[in-house]
Structure formats: structure tokens, C-alpha cells
């Protein structure tokens, strides 16, 4: 059995047609392994979010495939892709995208509710996850009453509540101060990562590079470099 959690093969994505056509991702291939934290770094506009979205079943590529458990997810029906997003992948958005009209606990319960868990049980489990990210006492507050770092943790709790195999972060530290950013990634690495999960983080925050197992560089839509963090090898 290979240790690959998810594999991207020759992904191509462009926007617009003819003169207005921008190719955001050019022939990107890589594999993410279980038990590791993979970084994708590169300047703004280099195609990182586009690539992540294709991997996580949110944006359909023009060419190429995304292989999960031996199957190309982009060959599946809409509903099956939705199921994969729900059960296999946890996505922490750059701007969190929490629901201001719901309590923090209800926000975290959403994936559980989508998985048809009963309301009360979902909220109980959600509070357990809030406890993991250290926000149990904030459970009944609306998210906008929380600080940026706390909201980020709520978003993480929501992403992990569905027990995904693959956890994807888009610039998790971009809107946080350096210290909070480091703490969050440290937390993810020590508390959430295990042998059955895999984490992909997009960032251009060099302060958190030390947590990476592999770092992939992107520029102008292309993957231009790949390195392993040898200090992590046991």
C-alpha cells in the first residue's frame, strides 16, 4: 500500500477565453502523503488557491485528475464529489467563512449535521471539538464576538469535526499576527495530525516553514521546486 493520501496529476486550470484567458495552474502534479504536513508556497497570484480548490473537489480542472483512493474525483457525479468534500476533506478557508447568525458550536456542528447526525448529538460533538481547540467556553457566542485567532480555531474545529483524512488550509496565518499564526500551526501539527491524516497548507509566511515536511514552490501557475525538510526525518 502506498502512503499517498491524494495525488494531483497534470492539473490545468484556466479562466476566461481567447484574449482574456489566464492560465492559473499549468500542468501541476504532486502527491500528498499521510502523516505529513505539505506546504505550497509562492507569491500572490501564482495559482495556489486554484490548485487547492481543484484538489479539494471545489473547482473542476480543465485538464488532469485528482486521485483519491484510486479514483479520479473529477470523474464522479456532483453528489459524490459533495460526499467526498463532506467525508474526506476538511477545508479551512482563508477568511474562515463562519456563519455569523449561528453560534460557534452550531458552526462547528455543520459538517456533522450534513452527515445526518441528530441536532443535539452534533452540538455535543461540536463542543468536544471546540474543547480541542480550546474554545469550549465560547460555544454559545456568535463567531464575530471572537478574536481573529479564535475564529481561525473555530474554522479548524469545523474542518476537523467531520474527521477528514485530508485537511487543507489556505493561508491560515495570513490575517493573524506572527505569534498566533505559529501557535495555530504548531497546534495543528501536534494535536491534529496523525498517521491516517494529511495536511496541506498554502502559505507565504516563512515564519511557519519549520513545521513543514515538504515544501512545494509555485510560480506563475507552475510547480517550480520541491524540497523535503530533512530535519524532520527520523
Amino acid at each position, binding site marked *: 500500500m502506498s502512503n499517498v493520501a491524494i495525488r494531483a496529476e497534470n492539473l490545468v486550470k484556466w479562466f476566461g477565453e481567447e484574449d482574456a484567458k489566464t492560465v492559473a495552474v499549468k500542468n501541476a502534479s504532486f502527491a500528498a502523503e499521510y502523516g505529513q504536513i505539505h506546504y505550497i508556497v509562492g507569491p500572490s497570484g501564482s495559482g495556489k*488557491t*486554484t490548485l487547492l*480548490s481543484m484538489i*479539494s473537489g*471545489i*473547482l473542476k480542472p480543465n485538464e488532469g485528475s485528482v486521485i483519491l483512493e484510486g479514483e479520479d474525483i473529477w470523474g464522479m457525479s*456532483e*453528489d459524490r464529489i*459533495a*460526499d*467526498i*468534500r*463532506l*467525508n474526506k476533506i476538511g*477545508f479551512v*478557508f*482563508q*477568511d474562515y*467563512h463562519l*456563519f455569523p*447568525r*449561528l453560534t460557534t458550536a*452550531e458552526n462547528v*456542528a*455543520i*459538517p456533522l*449535521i*450534513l452527515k*445526518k*447526525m*441528530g*441536532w443535539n448529538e*452534533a452540538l455535543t460533538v461540536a463542543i468536544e471539538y471546540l474543547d480541542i481547540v480550546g474554545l469550549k467556553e465560547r460555544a454559545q457566542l456568535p463567531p464575530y464576538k471572537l478574536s481573529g485567532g479564535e475564529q481561525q480555531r473555530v474554522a479548524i474545529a*469545523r474542518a476537523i469535526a*467531520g474527521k477528514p483524512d485530508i485537511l487543507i488550509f*489556505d493561508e491560515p496565518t495570513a490575517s493573524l499576527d506572527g505569534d498566533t499564526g505559529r501557535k495555530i500551526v504548531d497546534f495543528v501539527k501536534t494535536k491534529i495530525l496523525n498517521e491516517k491524516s494529511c495536511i496541506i497548507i498554502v502559505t507565504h509566511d516563512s515564519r511557519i516553514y519549520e513545521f513543514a515536511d515538504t515544501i512545494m514552490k509555485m510560480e506563475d501557475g507552475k510547480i517550480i521546486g520541491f524540497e523535503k525538510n530533512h530535519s524532520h526525518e527520523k
Partner: protein
Amino acid sequence: MSGILKIALKLLVNDKSKFTALLVGITFAVFLMVMMTSMFSGILTRSSSSVYNIGAKIWVMDPAVNNATSSIPMPDYVLSAARGIRGVKYAVPLFFGTAQVKLKSGAYQAATVVGLDDATLYGRPELIKGNINDIYGDNAFIVVKDAEYTKLEKPDVGTDFEINDYRGVVVGLAKVASSGLFGIPTIYTTYSRAITYIPTTRFTTSYVLIEPKSDSDIPYIQQQIQKLGYQALTRDQFVKKISDFYTFKTGMGMNILLMTTISFIVGLSISGQTFYTFILENLEKFGALKAIGAKGKELISMILFQAAFTSFIGYGLGVGLASTFMILARLRLPDYAAQITFTILGFAFLMVLIIAGVSSYIGVRKVLQIQPFDIFRG
């Protein structure tokens, strides 16, 4: 309730200002539609009040009649022919006319005069004072105590008045099921007295009222009357004929229809617009749900639920508001005609369903189109 609908509900009602705006829009639309149609329904009922109040099973009339109070007199042979038809238990004449009544104070007041068949008094009203047989007394009249009663200066048994230079005396007060549309009082007397006191044309029978032996005889009776060149209508058919006349042959029906349509459009655009804005402002949320793994049909069920929930509450509020308004109006205005019927409630409900349907259709289309990616790219 499934968890996903509970989330939909919270997203909806926790957004208080938008939820209120939605409710106001639908409530207002329902209120307007119910008011308009109730007004119309009230007017229609009143336009047929004589038909209800007389209560005969079958009415024979000139085919050109389209309103109970403007009858076209028929020759006497119609009555005798009707009596000869198989299945007719009995047939009696009815007189309908208008007269100027000179009251005690010296004022004149127009009144509808109904002349009941002398032998049977078929179609007699229910008396609340006096004895029906007193109608055979000299100059005897029975006054209907409806919304127009006061226009006769509240007469009582024994009150006398002048009617076309004859003396008239009140021998009883009657109550009826429905007031008339034209705002004039009604008085009853016998057929023979009515045609003596009131100037008439050569023919004096306004209607022939028929009581069939059984309901199954009605089609045959109608057929035979038609052969005479006249029309025999059941009570419901006659009411429908009158209603159709007011609805389609006068400006009234069209105007009400127009106003109802306008209130529907106003309601639809207010609530449709507000709901659309609500969906637009929550598009990001729906996109997030989609990204987290909500399926298209789950998002659709959320939107339908939100639209249905708002609509039903708005419907309830609108109907409640209209009823309250009518009850208050009736307290002050005895002549106030509006009435809410089950048809109106059903109609308004249907309109609300359409409003909810159109609004959610727009919302659903929008939500199914969103690409979560466009929202997250930031």
C-alpha cells in the same frame, strides 16, 4: 425537523431586519389581496341577497334578467304552464318592485317591495316581531330589519306610512340572511296588494318560484321552462348568473380584479425582491455550505423551507390583519360589505404559494450557480 432545515431556519430568523422586511412584504400583499377579494365577495353576496332571502329552489325568469331586483315581468301563462309541468310540487308568483315611501317625518325613501303569493306566502321571511298572518290585514306590510332599517326611521309594529298615496301599516319585523347591495330598505306584502299599490306594466309576475317534488325533477323542469322561452334556474345558478353579471359585465369586477392583481404584483415584488436580497447576501454562506459538502438538493430544501416558512407566517399575519380590520370596520359601519370566505383564504394561500415559489425559484437558481471557489479566492 432535520438539522439542515434547523440551520436554514436560524439563518433566516436570526437575520432579524431582513426577516422582518420579508414578513412585512408578504403580510402586506396578503392583506391587500384578502381585502380586495373580500370586498368583492361581500358585494357579490349582497347583489344576490334577494335570492338568498326568498330561498326558493327554482326561479323562473326572463332570460335577460341578470339581477334579482331588476326583473322583467312575465305573462301569466308562464305560471300556469309551470304548474302543469311534471315534477312541480307547486309554483307561485313573486312580485319585485320599487316604491317611494313617505315616512312620518315627511321624508321620502325608496324601498324594494316584495309581493309574496297570497295563498302560500312562499318565500316569506322569518319574523322577529308580529305574526305572519297579519300580512293579510288591511294595508299590511312587513319591514325587514337589516342594515337599511334605520332609513325607514326605525318603524315598529303599528307604525304607518304612505306608499304611492296608499296607506301602509307595519304589522311585523323580519330578519333576513343578507342585506342588499343598493342600500335601500326592503318591505314585504302580499302579491295582490303589491300589484295594486305599485304601478306595474301589463305583466305583473316578476318571477315564478317553483318547489320541485324532488331534486331529480329539476333538469326536466328546466328543460320544459326553456321550451316556453324562459329560464328556470336553481338558487345557486341564479346567484352565479348575478355574480357573473357584476364580475364580467360591470366595471366593478374588472376593477377589483385589477386591484387584486396589483396587490399581488406589489406583494410579489416586495417579497420576491427581499427574498432575493436575502439569498444574495447569504450567497457566501450557501457557497460555504456547498464547499463543506452540502448537496444541491439540500441547499434547495433549505431555500424552499425558508421561503415556505416566511410565506406561511406572512399569510397568517395578513389574514389576521384583514380580519381584524373588517371586524373593526363592521363595528363602525353596519353597511360594511366585505366578507372573508374559504375561497378567498384558498385564493390568497395560492397566491402566497406562487410568491414563495417564484422567490425560491430565483434563489435556488442563484444558489445552484455559485462556485464556492469564486467566493473563497478572496
